[in-house]
């Protein structure tokens, strides 16, 4: 199969969906004439014109709300946030608007919209540009939250997200846009809410999602050298979570380590740990461990970043602890 970049996989999903359904359009800062801050939407203005690939002023609250209103009135907007750090000024519209409309209207108005853009750290950008809000959005009923880890999943999940009749938060990473991987041409859908075993194993389960999954995969490769067989479960979606896939894996390996880029308190890893102790307690041979960012803002200096972000070394330590 041909290999393309993550950004190209996203672009293909958007382009194919926009060809298929004229109610789909893209809006955000720099998406049109500049071809996207990270070149995800490169060439889309040329194909679809300014009525469907729309540059906005820097007004996230305003254009997030305009997107939601358009979705209430029959369109299927894709709203790009330059990064999800900037979605905080729009979070009222997402939580109080998009996520509530269907319920408050007694089922009269659904909101088929995708909010997409990068999440998490992206090099030395310091504290305001390096945050993971996956668990914030995942906390809110009414939303779905998708966080793909490779180009193949990104395309199939983005197509599903665009066709979904509910609001979807779709989170990418600047650090993944250049990643290459095999991606089929044309349409294929990956269902929202289904995890994927990225590597089968028998001794320990590593659960992760998004770009930090690479850390789990690298740790699994290291462990193999030491004769430890790690299974890596990629959640792919953090609302809803495919709990069943996690529990099935733990029943097989009896050990669990969760690797997540967000801060620890009330995170996806807390949620998974709760669920597994509740529904697979008797299968656990050791307390669940997790590797998250340290409970700190992310600073600029590389030596400090090294301390804070989840990495292979910390993951291996966590695995050693559950293997004891």
């Amino acid at each position, binding site marked *: 199969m041909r290999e393309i970049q993550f950004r190209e996989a996203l672009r293909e999903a958007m382009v194919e969906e926009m060809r298929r359904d004229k109610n789909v359009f893209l809006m955000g800062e720099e998406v049109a004439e500049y071809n996207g801050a990270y070149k995800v939407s490169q060439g889309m203005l040329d194909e679809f014109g300014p009525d469907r690939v729309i540059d906005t002023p820097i007004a996230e*609250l305003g254009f997030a*709300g305009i997107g939601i209103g358009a979705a*209430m009135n029959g369109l299927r907007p894709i709203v790009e946030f330059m990064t999800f750090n900037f979605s905080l000024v729009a979070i009222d*519209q997402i939580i109080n608007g998009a996520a509530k409309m269907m319920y408050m209207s007694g089922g009269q108005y659904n909101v088929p919209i995708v909010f997409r853009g990068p999440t998490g750290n992206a090099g030395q950008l310091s504290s305001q540009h390096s945050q993971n809000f996956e668990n914030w959005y995942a906390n809110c009923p009414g939303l779905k939250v998708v966080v793909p880890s490779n180009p193949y999943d990104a395309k199939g999940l983005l197509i599903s997200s665009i066709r979904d009749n509910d609001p979807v938060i779709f989170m990418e990473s600047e650090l993944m846009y250049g990643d290459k991987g095999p991606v089929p041409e044309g349409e294929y859908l990956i269902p929202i809410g289904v995890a994927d075993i990225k590597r089968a194993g028998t001794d320990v389960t590593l659960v992760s999602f998004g770009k930090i999954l690479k850390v789990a995969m690298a740790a699994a490769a290291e462990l193999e050298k030491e004769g430890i067989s790690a299974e890596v479960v990629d959640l792919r979606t953090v609302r809803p979570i495919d709990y069943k896939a996690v529990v099935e894996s733990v029943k097989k390996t009896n050990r669990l380590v969760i690797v997540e880029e967000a801060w620890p308190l009330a995170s996806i890893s807390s949620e998974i740990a709760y669920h597994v102790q509740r529904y697979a307690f008797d299968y656990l041979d050791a307390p669940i461990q997790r590797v998250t960012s340290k409970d700190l803002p992310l600073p600029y200096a590389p030596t400090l970043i090294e301390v804070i972000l989840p990495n292979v070394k910390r993951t291996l330590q966590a695995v050693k602890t559950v293997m004891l």
Partner: protein
Amino acid sequence: MANLKETTKTKNKFTKETYLFWYEKMQLMRKFEEKAGQLYGQQKIKGFCHLYIGQEACAAGAATALTKDDKWITAYRDHGIPLALGSDPGAVMAELYGKITGSSKGKGGSMHIFDKSVNFLGGHGIVGGQIPLGAGIAFAEKYKGTKNLCICFMGDGAVRQGSFHETLNMAMLWKLPVIFVIENNGYAMGTSVKRTSNVIELYTLGESYDMPSFPVDAMSVEAVHIAVEEAAERARSGQGPTLLEFRTYRYKGHSMSDPAKYRTKEEVEEYKMKDPIEQVKRKLMELKYATQEQIEAIDLTVKETVEAAVRFAEESPFPDPSEAFKDVYAEEGYPFIDE
């Protein structure tokens, strides 16, 4: 206030039917709200409940100026608009009661009346939150190439939100078919307009974005109709949005819990002298469009309609507990965490 003078000149353009429609709808809103106030006192209606009494001309005058395919959105003071648009008063009352027969199946309550059958896209509880939604609804009309527009209501308090300014800017930039209406009733809860900014002529805020912007005497239903009609022409002919400042007044407190001690009795009386319903009633008599008996007959019909709405709400059941998990997602069978 240029267009107010104009109003005086042209006000006889309206037909007998229009005046009768206004009278009946405004009376319906007034009597419905008076009843809602009583029922709140009896704890039949709970939560926050914001009455529209005094502001009826805003919804009624706009209703006659627009077409049935136009879209409507407002804040939480939202009982008047659906009644003006012809929503079933029983469904609105049942929503205030939290009953399954309510317009939002009892999930919205007083602040979140929605009625797709009359293109009413809700009742929204975050001050200023509905403003970008209104522009987005209009965006969709323009995108689909219709001639429809969206009329987006907000309070005077909402214009101090960033959402107002971001939205006006983009709506004008993109020439969206939207009419922004500020229902300036003088107060945001207990805070008078003049305590919120140096800029208290609210319509002038639109001028920052090059938007045609006008004040309107909204105690006069004719003036409201004329202003909205002009704004609608601009929207439908591709000229984009208009900002209208409806100068109105709420006779009651902000919500049912507010005794409104921040204003004088004289101020309230002054506005009651200009009561929009009394104005229309006088006009009906003056122009011999209706006799005293005919007006009384309308009043009786309205009274019966409200009574029937209350009966319907009373007799309807509360939602079954199983309803809690419905309507969160359009998707069937979403796997909620349920333990």
